[in-house]
C-alpha cells in the first residue's frame, strides 16, 4: 500500500512538474500579448499585465504590420489544397499498394516512402533552381506543388497500413455488386477510412501552416507568402519590434490550427486508433 502510494505520489509530482514546465511559455505568451511595449519593458517578462486594455491595440498593430490577412488567406489555400490534395493522392496510392496486386508493388511503395527518409531541407536548392528555370518562383502554384509533394509519402505509409486492415471480403462483395476499382475506392474504402484521412489532413495542414522555410525560399513577395513568412517582418536588424507584438502575431497565426483541431478532434482521435469496425 505504502509502496503503491509513494509511487503514485511520485508520478503525480512528475506530472505536475511537466505541466508547470509546459504552462510557463504558455503563460508567458498570454501575459505578453496583454502588455503594451512600455508595460513589457518596465516589468519582468513573467509579470502579470495590469489590465487587458493593451490587447486590442497589440492585435491591431500585429495584424497590420505583418499584413496577416493576406498571409492567412495564402496559408489557408496552401493548407487546404496542399494537405487535401496530398491526402487524396496518398489515399489513391495506398489503395493501389494495399489492395491491387501489380508487378513491383513493394518497389513502388519504397520509392514513395523514400520521400520521408531524407530531410526536407536537401530539396531546397534543387527545388529553387528548378522553380527558377520553370518560372514557378513566387507563384502560389509552385509553393502548393512543393507542399503537396512533401505531404504525400507519410499519409501513404499510414493509409497503406490502414487499408491493408480493411477486410478484403468487402472489396469482393463490392466486385460481386459490380463495382470497378475506382468505385470500390470511392464507395467502400474511403468511407471506411474517414478517421485516418481527417487525422492525416490535420497533421499535414498544420505542417503546411507552420512551414517557414519553403515559403521563405520559394516566395519573396507579400502576395504569395504564407502566414509564418509574414511574421518575418518582425525579424532583422531594423525591425525594431518589441516581444509583445511578435508574440501577439505568433498567437494570432496559431489560432486557426487550434480552431481546426478543436473542430475535428473527434475524427483526429478516431484516426489515431486506425481501426475499422465492421
Amino acid at each position, binding site marked *: 500500500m505504502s509502496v503503491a502510494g509513494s509511487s503514485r505520489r511520485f508520478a503525480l509530482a512528475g506530472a505536475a512538474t511537466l505541466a508547470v514546465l509546459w504552462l510557463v511559455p504558455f503563460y508567458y505568451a498570454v501575459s505578453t500579448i496583454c502588455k503594451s511595449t512600455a508595460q513589457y519593458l518596465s516589468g519582468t517578462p513573467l509579470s502579470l499585465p495590469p489590465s487587458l486594455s493593451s490587447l486590442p491595440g497589440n492585435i491591431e498593430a500585429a495584424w497590420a504590420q505583418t499584413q496577416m490577412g493576406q498571409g492567412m488567406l495564402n496559408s489557408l489555400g496552401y493548407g487546404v489544397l496542399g494537405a487535401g490534395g496530398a491526402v487524396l493522392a496518398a489515399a489513391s496510392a495506398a489503395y493501389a499498394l494495399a489492395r491491387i496486386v501489380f508487378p513491383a508493388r513493394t518497389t513502388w511503395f519504397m520509392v514513395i516512402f523514400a520521400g520521408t527518409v531524407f530531410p526536407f531541407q536537401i530539396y531546397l536548392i534543387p527545388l529553387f533552381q528548378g522553380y527558377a528555370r520553370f518560372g514557378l518562383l513566387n507563384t502560389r502554384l509552385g509553393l502548393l506543388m512543393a507542399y503537396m509533394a512533401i505531404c504525400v509519402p507519410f499519409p501513404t505509409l499510414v493509409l497503406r497500413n490502414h487499408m491493408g486492415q480493411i477486410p478484403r471480403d468487402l472489396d469482393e462483395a463490392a*466486385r460481386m455488386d459490380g463495382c470497378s476499382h475506382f468505385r470500390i475506392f470511392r464507395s467502400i474504402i474511403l468511407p471506411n477510412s474517414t478517421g485516418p484521412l481527417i487525422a492525416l489532413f490535420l497533421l499535414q495542414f498544420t505542417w503546411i501552416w507552420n512551414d517557414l522555410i519553403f515559403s521563405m525560399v520559394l516566395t519573396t513577395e507579400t502576395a504569395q507568402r504564407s502566414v509564418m513568412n509574414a511574421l518575418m517582418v518582425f525579424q532583422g536588424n531594423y525591425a525594431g519590434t518589441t516581444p509583445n507584438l511578435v508574440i501577439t502575431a505568433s498567437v494570432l497565426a496559431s489560432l486557426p490550427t487550434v480552431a481546426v483541431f478543436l473542430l475535428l478532434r473527434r475524427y483526429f482521435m478516431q484516426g489515431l486508433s486506425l481501426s475499422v469496425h465492421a
Partner: protein
Amino acid sequence: MPGVTIEGLQKWYGGSQVIRDLHLTIPDGAFVALVGPSGCGKSTTLRMIAGLEMPSGGRIYIGSEDVTARPPAKRGVAMVFQSYALYPHMTVRDNLEFGLRVAGAKLADRVRRVTAAAEMLHLSDLMERRPSQLSGGQRQRVAIGRALVREPSVFLFDEPLSNLDAQLRAAMRIEIKRLHQTLRTTVIFVTHDQTEAMTMADTIVVMRDGNLEQIGSPLEVFERPANRFVAGFIGAPSMRMFDGRVEQDRMVLADGTALQLPGHVAHLAEGTEVTMGLRPEDLVVEGHGTLPVRPCFFEAPVLLTEPLGNETLIVMPFAESEAVARMYRPRPVAPGEVLRFAVDLDRIHVFDQKSGESLRRASAPGQT
C-alpha cells in the same frame, strides 16, 4: 434458372495445383453442397464460379453461356460470404440497395426488390441500422438479402453459418433451405461441416486435395461411400476402419476376429487385403435398439461413454483398435462394464487396403 457446368477446371497458385481437372454438372434449381476438409479446394472452386478467381484452365458455364472470363457482376450469380462482408458504413437498407444502385436500377425497382427481400427475411424493422448494431443472425440475413435483391440465377454460399452459434446455425439452416424451396434457384453451398451438407443439400460433392472424390445424394454418399476418405468424412462420429484379409467367405481382422462377408462384396477373392469400415449406427448394444437382420454378436468392456441424451456413444475395444457403438434409449453405463454388441453384417463397408476404393459390387443394391 440455369444450372452450372464445370469442365476441366484447374487452378494453380505458383507451382502448386489446388484444383485438378474438375468436372461437375449442377442441374437447374439444385442445392449442391461442396464439402471437404480445409484446403481441399472447395472455396477456390466457388470463388472461380463467382468470378473472384480466374481459373488456370478449364471452362465454367452458367446455363449455356461460357462465363469463364466474365466479371463477377455479369455472371448472374450472388454470393454470401463467410464473414458476411456487409459494408460497415452503410445501413441495412443501403447494404441491400448498393448493388442495384451500381447496376443503375431505377428507384421504383430498387424499392420493390429491397422491400420484398426485407419482408422475406424479416429485416423490415432493421433497415436503418448499421451492421455493427446487428446480431450475428441478423447480419447473416442481411447478407442473404443482399444476394437476394440481385435476383441471381445462382446463389453461392461460402461457409455462411460457420460464425454462428450452434442454435442459430440450426435455425439458419432451416431458413436457407426454406428460401431455396421458395425460390428454386440453383444453390452452391460450401461447408466443411458434413452435417450442414447432409441436412441442406440434395446433392453433395465431396472434395479432397483439389479432386472430386464423390458426387451423389446425401443418402448415397453416406450409404455407399466411394472410398475410405468419403466414408470417414461423411457421418458423425466418423466411420471406424479395421484392416483385414478375405479368407473364404469371411473377413479376418487383425486380432483374428472373423466376420461373414456382406453380400455386396461376396465376389472378393481369397487373400484380398481389405479395410473394413464400421459406422456407430451399425453397431448396437443388445437391448438398446433394433437388432440387425444378420447380427454378429460379441462382448466387450466399455472404455468410454459419451451421453447425448437421446442416445449414448460407447467406445469399446475391437480388433486391436477401438469401435464406437450407439446405445439407443440409454441407461447409465460405467467404464469397464461388459456389454453385448451386435454388428450389422449387411451394413459393413469394405475398401481396398491399398487404393482405399470401395470394393462394393457396382450392381449391388443400396444398404437401406
